[in-house]
């Protein structure tokens, strides 16, 4: 139940190859996140898996069965859309019941399953409302409810949290993760937000221009990025990249060092610079330092490291966490 394999899958719109060719294995029960910048083909890939878009070439295997030609409803997947796509004239109850009704289940079973889903999602009090009478978070939960009642082999989420405000997003992120623990069903989740990817995924697939840049666990990607793109995309604030003489000292075209792996001092260190902007978050402070002969570097220090704009500081990268890249942008290991 719920393993998905893509073999050589490609998608062409007109003359534009949105997805040149992708091979990917998703094992049963995994929480897989597709992450990448906007327009890189994440939604297209998800829609190919869902069957809402036909592949131009290649094969999609779901549960060991070739599903390439199957219509969406026959693939045993359910999807949560970015706009939620609730049926506006139906009550919450009818929305959640709709897939069951279409599957021809009897009324008693439908009622029971809808009640169960509503209880899990805290929607019991809203069952008789219309979608437009709900808040964004509640709509989101109805959309999830509609997806879970069918007990699909896998869930597909397309940027489900992008329409929510920041606080709610953190909340829903947690709820979706908990839902995954509870149901243990495969989830394929699309987002452009690397924080969501890092916090939720068992496995992250980093996409760029329709190509897979790297696949791995969140910490894998954080610790051992295969290339410049992944190194820059995963982690917040971004990794600092330095090329030229300081990189050549390490035998690389470019070196990368994360803000949290730079030690700061007011009296000594390898690189000298002046503080441009200091962003105080309370526990941490992010310093944007104009380093002499290197450029702007971001460094993370403790919240009580007292420097302000214009102060002189010294930076020392932690050699253990230095990433080296060749001129093609690939990691040197």
């Amino acid at each position, binding site marked *: 139940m719920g393993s998905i394999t893509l073999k050589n899958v490609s998608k062409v719109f007109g003359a534009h190859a949105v997805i040149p060719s992708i091979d990917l294995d998703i094992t049963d029960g995994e929480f897989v996140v597709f992450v990448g910048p906007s327009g890189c083909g994440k939604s297209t890939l998800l829609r190919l898996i869902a069957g*809402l878009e036909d592949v131009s070439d290649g094969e999609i295997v779901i549960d060991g069965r070739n599903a390439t030609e199957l*219509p969406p409803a026959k693939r045993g997947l359910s999807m949560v*859309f970015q706009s939620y*796509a*609730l049926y506006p*004239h139906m009550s919450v109850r009818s929305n959640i019941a709709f*897939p069951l009704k279409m*599957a021809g289940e009897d009324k008693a079973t439908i009622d029971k399953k809808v009640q169960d889903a509503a209880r899990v999602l805290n929607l019991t009090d809203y069952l008789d409302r219309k979608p437009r009478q709900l808040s964004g978070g509640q709509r989101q939960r109805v959309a999830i409810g*509609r997806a879970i009642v069918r007990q699909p082999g896998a869930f597909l989420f397309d940027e489900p949290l992008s329409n929510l405000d920041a606080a709610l997003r953190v909340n829903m992120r947690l709820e979706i993760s908990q839902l995954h623990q509870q149901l243990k069903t495969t989830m394929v989740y699309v987002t452009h937000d690397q924080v969501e990817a890092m916090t939720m995924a068992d496995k992250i697939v980093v996409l760029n221009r329709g190509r897979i840049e790297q696949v791995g666990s969140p910490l894998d990607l954080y610790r051992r990025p295969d290339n410049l793109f992944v190194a820059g995309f995963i982690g917040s604030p971004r990794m600092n990249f330095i090329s030229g003489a300081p990189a050549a000292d390490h035998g690389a075209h470019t070196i990368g060092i994360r803000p949290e792996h730079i030690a700061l001092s007011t009296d000594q260190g390898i690189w000298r610079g002046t503080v441009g902007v200091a962003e105080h978050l309370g526990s941490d402070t992010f310093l944007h330092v104009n380093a002499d002969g290197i450029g702007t570097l971001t460094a993370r220090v403790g919240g009580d490291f007292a420097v302000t704009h214009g102060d002189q500081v010294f930076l020392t990268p932690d050699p253990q966490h230095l990433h080296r890249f060749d001129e093609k942008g690939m990691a040197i290991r």
Partner: protein
Amino acid sequence: MRVPFSEPRRLHTGDAMATLHTRSAARLMIAPSVLLLLAWMIVPLAMTLYFSLLRYNLLMPGMEEFAGLTNYTYFLTDPAFFQAIFNTLAIVLGVLFITVVGGTALALLLDQPMFGQGIVRILVIAPFLIMPTVAALVWKNMFMNPVNGLFAWLAKLLGLQPFDFLANAPLLSIILIVAWQWLPFATLILLTALQSLDEEQKEAAQMDGAGAVSRFIYLVLPHLSRAITVVILIQTIFLLSVFAEILVTTNGGPGTQSTNLTFLVYAQALLQFDVGGASAGGIIAVILANIVAFFLMRMIGKTLEA
């Protein structure tokens, strides 16, 4: 930090007064046109009411005298009156049925991606641009004519007796002609409504296992309900007063078989020269139209709220 927050509040009170001022000025400025419109409506209505109480025949000018409600009793007890009411309703309901069902079907067809979509859409809209008299004459002479008409030719081709539509089924023929004219309107409104249906909703329904028919019943039809209501409302207003099509095809006949209220009033006034009777008929038509409007508004209120 306080200044940016306190500023808008002061502006706001000033704003409210400015709004009030603008509003009364606006009322003053539109007053003349409102008064003109009111007179435009009231004067003919009052005159019709006045004429309806007179014995006023164009063949006997200068002989007008007060007749009380005689004109009304005369008009209301005329057997042609009941026939006319029935015909009016039959035309309205028949045309509404054909245009809503046919319009939905056509809109669904036109919404599909196909070759030459632009031209096909213009072709579908064309009948709406043809004047009612012309359309009715085209139907009468080119399609329904029992000798030279296209339908007669078709019937003969199949070895059948040609059917004289306008003589044997006058009301149905008129309903067909009028429906043909209004079909584009319904199609157009329903097509735009159809195109505003969220693509993701359709896809969600598809993933939920709804086939084409279920998607139509549970998703498309409820989405179209507002547009259908609008079509019904606008068409009803115009269909209550169908006239040209009757005048150029059947002239209300045979007998009064295809006479509707509008045509009956016309016949009273200009064929029998009875201005008093026609005015009474006109007033009755206004009252009936208002009754229909009342029910329509209730129906629409319900749909548009939901």
